[in-house]
Protein backbone atom coordinates (compact mmCIF):
# COMPACT_ATOMS: atom_id res chain seq x y z
CA UNK A 1 0.00 0.00 0.00
CA UNK A 2 3.01 2.26 0.08
CA UNK A 3 3.79 2.11 -3.61
CA UNK A 4 2.04 4.77 -5.60
CA UNK A 5 2.31 5.56 -9.29
CA UNK A 6 2.16 9.24 -8.51
CA UNK A 7 5.74 9.17 -7.28
CA UNK A 8 6.99 8.29 -10.72
CA UNK A 9 6.27 11.90 -11.68
CA UNK A 10 9.13 12.96 -9.45
CA UNK A 11 11.54 10.46 -10.94
CA UNK A 12 14.52 11.39 -13.12
CA UNK A 13 13.48 12.92 -16.42
CA UNK A 14 13.72 10.47 -19.28
CA UNK A 15 15.42 11.73 -22.44
CA UNK A 16 12.38 11.08 -24.66
CA UNK A 17 9.02 12.01 -23.19
CA UNK A 18 6.24 10.11 -24.85
CA UNK A 19 2.70 11.37 -24.84
CA UNK A 20 0.89 9.66 -21.96
CA UNK A 21 -1.99 8.76 -24.27
CA UNK A 22 0.41 6.82 -26.48
CA UNK A 23 1.53 4.86 -23.43
CA UNK A 24 -2.08 4.31 -22.42
CA UNK A 25 -3.00 3.10 -25.91
CA UNK A 26 -0.02 0.74 -25.91
CA UNK A 27 -0.85 -0.74 -22.50
CA UNK A 28 -4.58 -0.98 -23.18
CA UNK A 29 -4.26 -2.61 -26.58
CA UNK A 30 -1.66 -5.04 -25.22
CA UNK A 31 -4.12 -6.03 -22.50
CA UNK A 32 -7.00 -6.48 -24.96
CA UNK A 33 -4.97 -8.41 -27.53
CA UNK A 34 -3.48 -10.73 -24.89
CA UNK A 35 -6.94 -11.48 -23.50
CA UNK A 36 -8.37 -12.03 -26.97
CA UNK A 37 -5.54 -14.26 -28.14
CA UNK A 38 -5.38 -16.33 -24.97
CA UNK A 39 -2.22 -18.16 -25.97
CA UNK A 40 0.42 -18.78 -23.36
CA UNK A 41 3.46 -18.01 -25.56
CA UNK A 42 2.04 -14.53 -26.21
CA UNK A 43 1.28 -14.04 -22.52
CA UNK A 44 4.83 -15.05 -21.61
CA UNK A 45 6.24 -12.67 -24.21
CA UNK A 46 4.14 -9.81 -22.85
CA UNK A 47 5.24 -10.59 -19.28
CA UNK A 48 8.89 -10.62 -20.36
CA UNK A 49 8.55 -7.41 -22.36
CA UNK A 50 6.78 -5.63 -19.49
CA UNK A 51 9.47 -6.64 -17.04
CA UNK A 52 12.16 -5.48 -19.45
CA UNK A 53 10.45 -2.13 -19.99
CA UNK A 54 9.99 -1.50 -16.30
CA UNK A 55 13.62 -2.40 -15.65
CA UNK A 56 14.64 0.07 -18.36
CA UNK A 57 12.41 2.73 -16.81
CA UNK A 58 13.88 2.09 -13.36
CA UNK A 59 10.57 1.09 -11.82
CA UNK A 60 11.07 -2.68 -11.83
CA UNK A 61 11.08 -3.07 -8.08
CA UNK A 62 7.87 -1.15 -7.46
CA UNK A 63 6.09 -2.77 -10.39
CA UNK A 64 7.12 -6.20 -9.16
CA UNK A 65 5.98 -5.48 -5.61
CA UNK A 66 2.60 -4.22 -6.77
CA UNK A 67 2.15 -7.11 -9.21
CA UNK A 68 3.09 -9.68 -6.58
CA UNK A 69 0.58 -8.22 -4.13
CA UNK A 70 -2.14 -8.78 -6.73
CA UNK A 71 -1.02 -11.95 -8.48
CA UNK A 72 0.15 -14.10 -5.56
CA UNK A 73 -3.24 -14.34 -3.78
CA UNK A 74 -5.01 -14.58 -7.13
CA UNK A 75 -2.66 -17.31 -8.34
CA UNK A 76 -2.94 -19.29 -5.10
CA UNK A 77 -6.70 -19.03 -5.22
CA UNK A 78 -6.87 -20.20 -8.85
CA UNK A 79 -4.42 -23.07 -8.27
CA UNK A 80 -6.34 -24.29 -5.25
CA UNK A 81 -9.67 -23.90 -7.02
CA UNK A 82 -8.87 -25.51 -10.36
CA UNK A 83 -5.91 -27.63 -9.33
CA UNK A 84 -7.93 -29.55 -6.75
CA UNK A 85 -11.51 -29.25 -7.96
CA UNK A 86 -12.12 -29.41 -11.67
CA UNK A 87 -15.10 -31.69 -12.28
CA UNK A 88 -14.69 -31.27 -16.06
CA UNK A 89 -11.17 -32.76 -15.91
CA UNK A 90 -10.63 -36.34 -17.10
CA UNK A 91 -6.92 -37.06 -16.68
CA UNK A 92 -6.59 -37.58 -12.93
CA UNK A 93 -3.12 -37.30 -11.44
CA UNK A 94 -4.03 -37.76 -7.81
CA UNK A 95 -7.20 -37.92 -5.75
CA UNK A 96 -7.99 -37.47 -2.08
CA UNK A 97 -11.67 -37.89 -1.45
CA UNK A 98 -13.49 -35.17 -3.34
CA UNK A 99 -10.26 -33.41 -4.34
CA UNK A 100 -8.84 -34.55 -7.66
CA UNK A 101 -5.76 -33.08 -9.26
CA UNK A 102 -6.39 -33.12 -13.00
CA UNK A 103 -4.19 -32.14 -15.91
CA UNK A 104 -6.99 -30.04 -17.38
CA UNK A 105 -7.52 -28.17 -14.12
CA UNK A 106 -3.84 -27.36 -13.69
CA UNK A 107 -3.60 -26.30 -17.32
CA UNK A 108 -6.63 -24.05 -16.99
CA UNK A 109 -5.28 -22.42 -13.84
CA UNK A 110 -1.83 -21.99 -15.37
CA UNK A 111 -3.15 -20.38 -18.52
CA UNK A 112 -5.40 -18.02 -16.59
CA UNK A 113 -2.55 -16.98 -14.30
CA UNK A 114 -0.23 -16.29 -17.22
CA UNK A 115 -2.88 -14.33 -19.08
CA UNK A 116 -3.89 -12.25 -16.06
CA UNK A 117 -0.23 -11.74 -15.19
CA UNK A 118 0.43 -10.34 -18.66
CA UNK A 119 -2.53 -7.95 -18.47
CA UNK A 120 -1.72 -6.81 -14.93
CA UNK A 121 1.96 -6.23 -15.70
CA UNK A 122 1.27 -4.33 -18.92
CA UNK A 123 -1.15 -1.98 -17.17
CA UNK A 124 1.07 -1.56 -14.09
CA UNK A 125 4.10 -0.69 -16.20
CA UNK A 126 1.96 2.06 -17.73
CA UNK A 127 0.70 3.46 -14.46
CA UNK A 128 4.09 3.40 -12.77
CA UNK A 129 5.89 5.04 -15.68
CA UNK A 130 3.41 7.65 -16.82
CA UNK A 131 3.86 11.22 -15.68
CA UNK A 132 0.63 12.08 -13.92
CA UNK A 133 0.63 15.84 -14.62
CA UNK A 134 1.14 15.06 -18.32
CA UNK A 135 -1.71 12.56 -18.29
CA UNK A 136 -4.08 15.06 -16.68
CA UNK A 137 -3.05 17.78 -19.13
CA UNK A 138 -3.43 15.44 -22.11
CA UNK A 139 -6.86 14.30 -20.94
CA UNK A 140 -8.09 17.86 -20.46
CA UNK A 141 -6.75 18.86 -23.87
CA UNK A 142 -8.74 16.02 -25.43
CA UNK A 143 -11.97 17.45 -24.02
CA UNK A 144 -12.22 14.89 -21.28
CA UNK A 145 -13.99 16.60 -18.44
CA UNK A 146 -11.75 18.61 -16.19
CA UNK A 147 -13.73 16.98 -13.38
CA UNK A 148 -12.52 13.49 -14.25
CA UNK A 149 -8.95 14.72 -14.40
CA UNK A 150 -9.47 16.39 -11.01
CA UNK A 151 -10.76 13.18 -9.43
CA UNK A 152 -7.90 11.13 -10.85
CA UNK A 153 -5.13 13.54 -9.89
CA UNK A 154 -6.63 14.34 -6.52
CA UNK A 155 -6.99 10.67 -5.56
CA UNK A 156 -3.46 9.77 -6.52
CA UNK A 157 -2.00 12.70 -4.61
CA UNK A 158 -4.31 12.26 -1.61
CA UNK A 159 -3.35 8.62 -1.07
CA UNK A 160 0.02 9.16 0.59
CA UNK A 161 -1.29 12.20 2.48
CA UNK A 162 -4.21 10.27 3.93
CA UNK A 163 -2.03 7.33 4.89
CA UNK A 164 0.22 9.75 6.75
CA UNK A 165 -2.77 11.31 8.51
CA UNK A 166 -4.06 7.88 9.50
CA UNK A 167 -0.68 7.18 11.13
CA UNK A 168 -0.80 10.48 13.02
CA UNK A 169 -4.29 9.74 14.31
CA UNK A 170 -3.20 6.32 15.49
CA UNK A 171 -0.23 7.80 17.31
CA UNK A 172 -2.44 10.41 18.92
CA UNK A 173 -4.93 7.76 20.08
CA UNK A 174 -2.12 5.58 21.36
CA UNK A 175 -0.71 8.45 23.36
CA UNK A 176 -4.18 8.82 24.89
CA UNK A 177 -4.06 5.22 26.02
CA UNK A 178 -5.39 3.19 23.09
CA UNK A 179 -4.14 -0.37 23.41
CA UNK A 180 -5.10 -2.83 20.71
CA UNK A 181 -5.27 -6.42 21.92
CA UNK A 182 -6.08 -9.53 19.95
CA UNK A 183 -9.63 -9.40 21.22
CA UNK A 184 -12.09 -8.76 18.37
CA UNK A 185 -14.10 -6.22 20.36
CA UNK A 186 -10.98 -4.30 21.24
CA UNK A 187 -10.00 -4.27 17.59
CA UNK A 188 -13.42 -2.97 16.59
CA UNK A 189 -13.21 -0.23 19.20
CA UNK A 190 -9.74 0.68 17.94
CA UNK A 191 -11.04 0.81 14.38
CA UNK A 192 -13.82 3.17 15.44
CA UNK A 193 -11.44 5.39 17.41
CA UNK A 194 -9.28 5.80 14.32
CA UNK A 195 -11.84 5.80 11.52
CA UNK A 196 -14.20 8.39 12.97
CA UNK A 197 -11.62 11.19 13.41
CA UNK A 198 -10.08 10.32 10.05
CA UNK A 199 -13.37 10.57 8.17
CA UNK A 200 -14.45 13.67 10.09
CA UNK A 201 -11.28 15.53 9.28
CA UNK A 202 -11.42 14.43 5.64
CA UNK A 203 -15.02 15.64 5.21
CA UNK A 204 -14.11 18.90 6.92
CA UNK A 205 -11.13 19.38 4.58
CA UNK A 206 -13.24 18.57 1.56
CA UNK A 207 -15.69 21.30 2.52
CA UNK A 208 -12.89 23.88 2.65
CA UNK A 209 -11.46 22.67 -0.62
CA UNK A 210 -14.81 22.78 -2.37
CA UNK A 211 -15.29 26.43 -1.42
CA UNK A 212 -11.82 27.22 -2.74
CA UNK A 213 -12.39 25.34 -6.00
CA UNK A 214 -15.79 26.91 -6.50
CA UNK A 215 -14.25 30.35 -6.05
CA UNK A 216 -11.79 29.48 -8.81
CA UNK A 217 -14.51 28.57 -11.26
CA UNK A 218 -14.54 24.77 -11.12
CA UNK A 219 -18.15 24.56 -12.30
CA UNK A 220 -17.78 27.13 -15.05
CA UNK A 221 -18.18 25.81 -18.55
CA UNK A 222 -16.08 26.86 -21.46
CA UNK A 223 -12.54 26.31 -22.68
CA UNK A 224 -9.60 26.23 -20.28
CA UNK A 225 -6.04 27.25 -20.88
CA UNK A 226 -3.38 24.74 -19.95
CA UNK A 227 0.13 25.95 -19.27
CA UNK A 228 1.55 22.48 -19.56
CA UNK A 229 2.84 21.41 -22.96
CA UNK A 230 2.41 17.72 -23.57
CA UNK A 231 4.76 16.37 -26.24
CA UNK A 232 3.02 14.84 -29.21
CA UNK A 233 3.95 14.08 -32.80
CA UNK A 234 2.37 12.79 -35.95
CA UNK A 235 4.19 9.49 -35.48
CA UNK A 236 2.64 9.05 -32.03
CA UNK A 237 -0.81 9.97 -33.29
CA UNK A 238 -0.51 7.35 -36.02
CA UNK A 239 0.81 4.79 -33.56
CA UNK A 240 -2.16 5.41 -31.28
CA UNK A 241 -4.64 4.95 -34.10
CA UNK A 242 -2.93 1.73 -35.19
CA UNK A 243 -2.89 0.36 -31.63
CA UNK A 244 -6.57 1.10 -31.03
CA UNK A 245 -7.51 -0.41 -34.40
CA UNK A 246 -5.44 -3.51 -33.67
CA UNK A 247 -7.17 -3.98 -30.32
CA UNK A 248 -10.59 -3.55 -31.92
CA UNK A 249 -9.64 -5.99 -34.69
CA UNK A 250 -8.49 -8.59 -32.15
CA UNK A 251 -11.75 -8.17 -30.26
CA UNK A 252 -13.92 -8.57 -33.37
CA UNK A 253 -11.87 -11.48 -34.67
CA UNK A 254 -12.20 -13.30 -31.38
CA UNK A 255 -15.96 -12.71 -31.19
CA UNK A 256 -16.45 -13.86 -34.81
CA UNK A 257 -14.44 -17.00 -34.09
CA UNK A 258 -16.51 -17.71 -31.02
CA UNK A 259 -19.69 -17.12 -32.99
CA UNK A 260 -18.54 -19.49 -35.75
CA UNK A 261 -17.59 -22.27 -33.35
CA UNK A 262 -20.78 -21.97 -31.30
Amino acid at each position, binding site marked *: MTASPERSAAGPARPVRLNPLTLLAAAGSTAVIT*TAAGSWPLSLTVIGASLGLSAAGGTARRVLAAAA*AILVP*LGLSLLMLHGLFFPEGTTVLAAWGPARVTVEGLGFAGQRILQLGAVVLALLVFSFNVSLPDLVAALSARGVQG*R*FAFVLAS*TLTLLPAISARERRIRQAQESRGLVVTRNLLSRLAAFRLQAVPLVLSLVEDAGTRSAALEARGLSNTGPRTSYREVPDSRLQRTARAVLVLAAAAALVLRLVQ*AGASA
Partner: protein
Amino acid sequence: MSSPSLTLPSQERPAARRRRLLEILGALAIAATYVYLVLNQPADITGGPGSASALIALSGFLAGAVLLIAAVLPTLPASTLVLIPVALVLNIVLGQFVGSTLVPFYLDAIGTVLIAVLAGPAAGAATGALSSIVWSFFNPTVLPFAAGAALIGCLAGLAARYGLFRRFYLAPVAGFVTGIIAGVVSAPVAAFVFGGTSGVATGAIVSAFRAMGDTLLAAITKQALISDPMDKAIVFTIVAILVYALPRRARQQFPFLRRHRVLAGKAPAGTTEAPAQGAARDH
Protein backbone atom coordinates in the same frame (compact mmCIF):
# COMPACT_ATOMS: atom_id res chain seq x y z
CA MET B 1 -26.59 23.12 -10.50
CA SER B 2 -24.15 24.48 -7.98
CA SER B 3 -24.02 28.06 -9.16
CA PRO B 4 -26.91 28.91 -11.48
CA SER B 5 -26.08 31.94 -13.51
CA LEU B 6 -28.50 34.80 -13.16
CA THR B 7 -27.57 36.63 -16.32
CA LEU B 8 -26.80 34.15 -19.07
CA PRO B 9 -29.51 32.16 -20.85
CA SER B 10 -29.58 28.63 -19.56
CA GLN B 11 -28.30 25.77 -21.70
CA GLU B 12 -29.52 23.24 -19.18
CA ARG B 13 -32.43 21.61 -20.99
CA PRO B 14 -30.73 19.81 -23.95
CA ALA B 15 -27.68 18.99 -21.84
CA ALA B 16 -29.87 17.43 -19.18
CA ARG B 17 -31.68 15.35 -21.78
CA ARG B 18 -28.40 14.15 -23.24
CA ARG B 19 -27.17 13.16 -19.78
CA ARG B 20 -30.38 11.30 -19.04
CA LEU B 21 -29.87 9.41 -22.32
CA LEU B 22 -26.30 8.53 -21.35
CA GLU B 23 -27.51 7.33 -17.95
CA ILE B 24 -30.13 5.07 -19.53
CA LEU B 25 -27.66 3.76 -22.11
CA GLY B 26 -25.15 2.97 -19.37
CA ALA B 27 -27.69 1.09 -17.30
CA LEU B 28 -28.88 -0.76 -20.42
CA ALA B 29 -25.34 -1.78 -21.37
CA ILE B 30 -24.76 -3.26 -17.91
CA ALA B 31 -28.12 -5.04 -17.82
CA ALA B 32 -27.79 -6.39 -21.36
CA THR B 33 -24.29 -7.73 -20.71
CA TYR B 34 -25.44 -9.50 -17.57
CA VAL B 35 -28.53 -11.00 -19.22
CA TYR B 36 -26.47 -12.17 -22.20
CA LEU B 37 -23.85 -13.81 -19.99
CA VAL B 38 -26.37 -15.60 -17.80
CA LEU B 39 -28.78 -16.64 -20.53
CA ASN B 40 -26.08 -17.89 -22.86
CA GLN B 41 -24.11 -19.56 -20.03
CA PRO B 42 -21.23 -19.61 -22.50
CA ALA B 43 -19.98 -23.13 -22.91
CA ASP B 44 -16.38 -22.03 -23.23
CA ILE B 45 -16.16 -20.93 -19.62
CA THR B 46 -13.68 -23.63 -18.77
CA GLY B 47 -12.69 -24.21 -22.38
CA GLY B 48 -9.54 -22.17 -22.13
CA PRO B 49 -8.67 -18.56 -21.57
CA GLY B 50 -9.21 -15.82 -24.09
CA SER B 51 -12.83 -16.77 -24.13
CA ALA B 52 -15.16 -14.46 -25.95
CA SER B 53 -17.33 -14.16 -22.87
CA ALA B 54 -14.46 -12.59 -20.92
CA LEU B 55 -14.23 -9.93 -23.60
CA ILE B 56 -17.98 -9.39 -23.67
CA ALA B 57 -18.13 -9.10 -19.87
CA LEU B 58 -15.19 -6.69 -19.87
CA SER B 59 -16.34 -4.42 -22.66
CA GLY B 60 -20.04 -4.38 -21.77
CA PHE B 61 -19.59 -3.65 -18.08
CA LEU B 62 -16.83 -1.12 -18.69
CA ALA B 63 -18.76 0.75 -21.36
CA GLY B 64 -21.78 0.93 -19.06
CA ALA B 65 -19.69 2.28 -16.20
CA VAL B 66 -18.03 4.91 -18.39
CA LEU B 67 -21.42 6.07 -19.74
CA LEU B 68 -22.74 6.41 -16.19
CA ILE B 69 -19.71 8.48 -15.17
CA ALA B 70 -20.11 10.73 -18.22
CA ALA B 71 -23.77 11.24 -17.38
CA VAL B 72 -23.45 11.93 -13.67
CA LEU B 73 -20.10 13.63 -13.14
CA PRO B 74 -20.98 17.01 -14.72
CA THR B 75 -24.10 17.35 -12.59
CA LEU B 76 -22.45 16.93 -9.18
CA PRO B 77 -22.03 20.00 -6.99
CA ALA B 78 -18.50 20.89 -5.95
CA SER B 79 -19.04 19.80 -2.35
CA THR B 80 -19.75 16.26 -3.58
CA LEU B 81 -17.05 16.30 -6.23
CA VAL B 82 -14.25 17.00 -3.76
CA LEU B 83 -15.47 14.17 -1.56
CA ILE B 84 -15.14 11.60 -4.35
CA PRO B 85 -11.32 11.39 -4.18
CA VAL B 86 -11.61 11.01 -0.40
CA ALA B 87 -14.09 8.17 -0.87
CA LEU B 88 -11.83 6.50 -3.41
CA VAL B 89 -8.90 6.64 -1.02
CA LEU B 90 -11.02 5.14 1.76
CA ASN B 91 -12.13 2.34 -0.61
CA ILE B 92 -8.59 1.63 -1.70
CA VAL B 93 -6.92 1.82 1.71
CA LEU B 94 -9.49 -0.37 3.47
CA GLY B 95 -10.09 -2.69 0.48
CA GLN B 96 -6.42 -3.31 -0.18
CA PHE B 97 -5.96 -4.24 3.46
CA VAL B 98 -8.83 -6.70 3.69
CA GLY B 99 -8.59 -8.10 0.16
CA SER B 100 -5.45 -10.09 0.73
CA THR B 101 -6.15 -11.27 4.27
CA LEU B 102 -7.77 -14.54 5.18
CA VAL B 103 -11.28 -13.18 5.62
CA PRO B 104 -13.89 -13.87 2.94
CA PHE B 105 -14.91 -10.20 2.86
CA TYR B 106 -13.81 -7.21 0.81
CA LEU B 107 -14.90 -4.05 2.72
CA ASP B 108 -13.89 -2.09 -0.36
CA ALA B 109 -17.04 0.01 -0.63
CA ILE B 110 -17.02 2.11 2.55
CA GLY B 111 -16.18 5.32 0.71
CA THR B 112 -18.70 4.64 -2.06
CA VAL B 113 -21.53 3.97 0.38
CA LEU B 114 -20.56 7.02 2.42
CA ILE B 115 -20.90 9.29 -0.64
CA ALA B 116 -24.15 7.59 -1.63
CA VAL B 117 -25.67 8.30 1.79
CA LEU B 118 -24.43 11.90 1.85
CA ALA B 119 -25.14 12.84 -1.76
CA GLY B 120 -27.61 10.41 -3.30
CA PRO B 121 -27.79 7.47 -5.70
CA ALA B 122 -26.37 9.21 -8.79
CA ALA B 123 -23.31 10.41 -6.92
CA GLY B 124 -22.93 6.97 -5.38
CA ALA B 125 -23.03 5.24 -8.75
CA ALA B 126 -20.46 7.60 -10.23
CA THR B 127 -18.22 7.17 -7.20
CA GLY B 128 -18.39 3.38 -7.42
CA ALA B 129 -17.47 3.33 -11.10
CA LEU B 130 -14.76 5.96 -10.72
CA SER B 131 -13.35 4.10 -7.77
CA SER B 132 -12.77 0.99 -9.87
CA ILE B 133 -11.21 2.95 -12.70
CA VAL B 134 -8.84 4.93 -10.49
CA TRP B 135 -8.00 1.93 -8.32
CA SER B 136 -7.01 0.02 -11.45
CA PHE B 137 -3.95 2.26 -11.58
CA PHE B 138 -2.58 0.16 -8.73
CA ASN B 139 -4.56 -3.00 -9.23
CA PRO B 140 -5.83 -3.60 -12.76
CA THR B 141 -7.90 -6.58 -11.62
CA VAL B 142 -10.62 -4.35 -10.09
CA LEU B 143 -11.37 -2.67 -13.42
CA PRO B 144 -13.97 -5.22 -14.59
CA PHE B 145 -15.95 -4.77 -11.37
CA ALA B 146 -16.75 -1.13 -12.18
CA ALA B 147 -20.38 -1.91 -13.01
CA GLY B 148 -20.92 -3.84 -9.78
CA ALA B 149 -19.41 -1.00 -7.77
CA ALA B 150 -21.67 1.51 -9.52
CA LEU B 151 -24.67 -0.65 -8.66
CA ILE B 152 -23.66 -0.76 -4.99
CA GLY B 153 -23.38 3.04 -4.88
CA CYS B 154 -26.74 3.47 -6.57
CA LEU B 155 -28.53 1.01 -4.27
CA ALA B 156 -26.96 2.55 -1.17
CA GLY B 157 -28.17 5.97 -2.28
CA LEU B 158 -31.68 4.64 -2.84
CA ALA B 159 -31.65 3.04 0.61
CA ALA B 160 -30.69 6.39 2.12
CA ARG B 161 -33.30 8.22 0.05
CA TYR B 162 -36.10 6.00 1.30
CA GLY B 163 -35.14 6.37 4.92
CA LEU B 164 -33.40 3.07 5.65
CA PHE B 165 -30.63 4.92 7.48
CA ARG B 166 -33.11 6.58 9.85
CA ARG B 167 -33.29 3.51 12.04
CA PHE B 168 -30.08 1.93 13.07
CA TYR B 169 -31.17 -1.67 12.63
CA LEU B 170 -32.39 -1.10 9.06
CA ALA B 171 -28.98 -0.11 7.69
CA PRO B 172 -27.47 -3.63 7.86
CA VAL B 173 -30.66 -5.04 6.33
CA ALA B 174 -30.36 -2.64 3.39
CA GLY B 175 -26.71 -3.64 3.10
CA PHE B 176 -27.64 -7.32 3.09
CA VAL B 177 -30.10 -6.85 0.20
CA THR B 178 -27.63 -4.68 -1.72
CA GLY B 179 -25.03 -7.39 -1.26
CA ILE B 180 -27.29 -10.05 -2.74
CA ILE B 181 -27.94 -7.99 -5.88
CA ALA B 182 -24.35 -6.81 -6.26
CA GLY B 183 -22.96 -10.30 -5.69
CA VAL B 184 -25.16 -11.84 -8.35
CA VAL B 185 -24.17 -9.17 -10.88
CA SER B 186 -20.44 -9.37 -10.13
CA ALA B 187 -20.21 -13.17 -10.21
CA PRO B 188 -20.05 -13.49 -14.03
CA VAL B 189 -17.08 -11.10 -14.05
CA ALA B 190 -15.19 -13.22 -11.56
CA ALA B 191 -16.12 -16.39 -13.43
CA PHE B 192 -15.48 -15.32 -17.02
CA VAL B 193 -12.65 -12.83 -16.66
CA PHE B 194 -10.68 -14.37 -13.81
CA GLY B 195 -11.87 -17.94 -13.76
CA GLY B 196 -12.06 -17.67 -9.98
CA THR B 197 -11.79 -15.17 -7.17
CA SER B 198 -8.85 -13.01 -6.25
CA GLY B 199 -8.71 -13.84 -2.54
CA VAL B 200 -7.61 -17.07 -0.92
CA ALA B 201 -10.52 -17.21 1.51
CA THR B 202 -13.17 -16.60 -1.14
CA GLY B 203 -11.37 -19.13 -3.34
CA ALA B 204 -11.76 -21.75 -0.62
CA ILE B 205 -15.52 -21.24 -0.58
CA VAL B 206 -15.72 -21.54 -4.37
CA SER B 207 -13.64 -24.72 -4.18
CA ALA B 208 -16.14 -26.22 -1.77
CA PHE B 209 -19.00 -25.69 -4.22
CA ARG B 210 -16.90 -26.94 -7.14
CA ALA B 211 -16.19 -30.08 -5.12
CA MET B 212 -19.93 -30.66 -5.04
CA GLY B 213 -19.96 -30.59 -8.82
CA ASP B 214 -21.28 -27.09 -9.52
CA THR B 215 -20.34 -25.25 -12.69
CA LEU B 216 -17.86 -22.45 -12.19
CA LEU B 217 -20.49 -19.71 -12.58
CA ALA B 218 -22.85 -21.42 -10.14
CA ALA B 219 -20.07 -21.94 -7.59
CA ILE B 220 -18.90 -18.34 -7.79
CA THR B 221 -22.47 -17.01 -7.60
CA LYS B 222 -23.05 -19.06 -4.44
CA GLN B 223 -19.79 -17.83 -2.96
CA ALA B 224 -20.86 -14.26 -3.76
CA LEU B 225 -24.19 -14.92 -2.04
CA ILE B 226 -22.30 -15.98 1.09
CA SER B 227 -19.68 -13.23 1.14
CA ASP B 228 -21.37 -10.17 -0.35
CA PRO B 229 -24.48 -9.75 1.81
CA MET B 230 -22.49 -10.05 5.04
CA ASP B 231 -19.81 -7.78 3.66
CA LYS B 232 -22.27 -5.07 2.62
CA ALA B 233 -24.18 -5.36 5.91
CA ILE B 234 -20.92 -4.61 7.73
CA VAL B 235 -20.09 -1.77 5.35
CA PHE B 236 -23.53 -0.15 5.72
CA THR B 237 -23.27 -0.38 9.51
CA ILE B 238 -19.83 1.23 9.51
CA VAL B 239 -21.11 4.01 7.26
CA ALA B 240 -24.14 4.57 9.51
CA ILE B 241 -21.79 4.96 12.49
CA LEU B 242 -19.62 7.39 10.56
CA VAL B 243 -22.50 9.50 9.24
CA TYR B 244 -24.12 9.85 12.65
CA ALA B 245 -20.74 10.85 14.09
CA LEU B 246 -20.40 13.73 11.63
CA PRO B 247 -20.91 17.13 13.25
CA ARG B 248 -23.95 19.02 12.04
CA ARG B 249 -21.84 21.65 10.32
CA ALA B 250 -20.28 19.00 8.08
CA ARG B 251 -23.64 17.42 7.34
CA GLN B 252 -25.16 20.69 6.27
CA GLN B 253 -22.99 20.78 3.17
CA PHE B 254 -25.17 18.05 1.69
CA PRO B 255 -28.62 19.11 0.49
CA PHE B 256 -29.52 15.45 -0.18
CA LEU B 257 -29.40 14.72 3.56
CA ARG B 258 -31.82 17.55 4.29
CA ARG B 259 -34.16 17.13 1.37
CA HIS B 260 -34.90 13.47 2.02
CA ARG B 261 -34.40 13.47 5.79
CA VAL B 262 -31.87 10.66 5.43
CA LEU B 263 -30.91 10.60 9.09
CA ALA B 264 -32.96 10.30 12.22
CA GLY B 265 -33.18 13.33 14.44
CA LYS B 266 -34.77 16.72 14.49
CA ALA B 267 -36.10 17.99 11.19
CA PRO B 268 -33.71 20.64 9.94
CA ALA B 269 -34.72 24.26 9.97
CA GLY B 270 -36.74 25.29 6.97
CA THR B 271 -38.92 22.22 6.71
CA THR B 272 -42.37 22.23 8.21
CA GLU B 273 -42.62 18.49 8.66
CA ALA B 274 -42.92 16.97 12.08
CA PRO B 275 -39.64 15.92 13.69
CA ALA B 276 -38.46 12.48 12.77
CA GLN B 277 -39.19 9.66 15.10
CA GLY B 278 -37.51 8.94 18.34
CA ALA B 279 -34.12 9.53 19.77
CA ALA B 280 -32.29 12.50 18.39
CA ARG B 281 -28.84 11.21 17.66
CA ASP B 282 -27.36 14.60 16.95
CA HIS B 283 -24.08 15.34 18.58
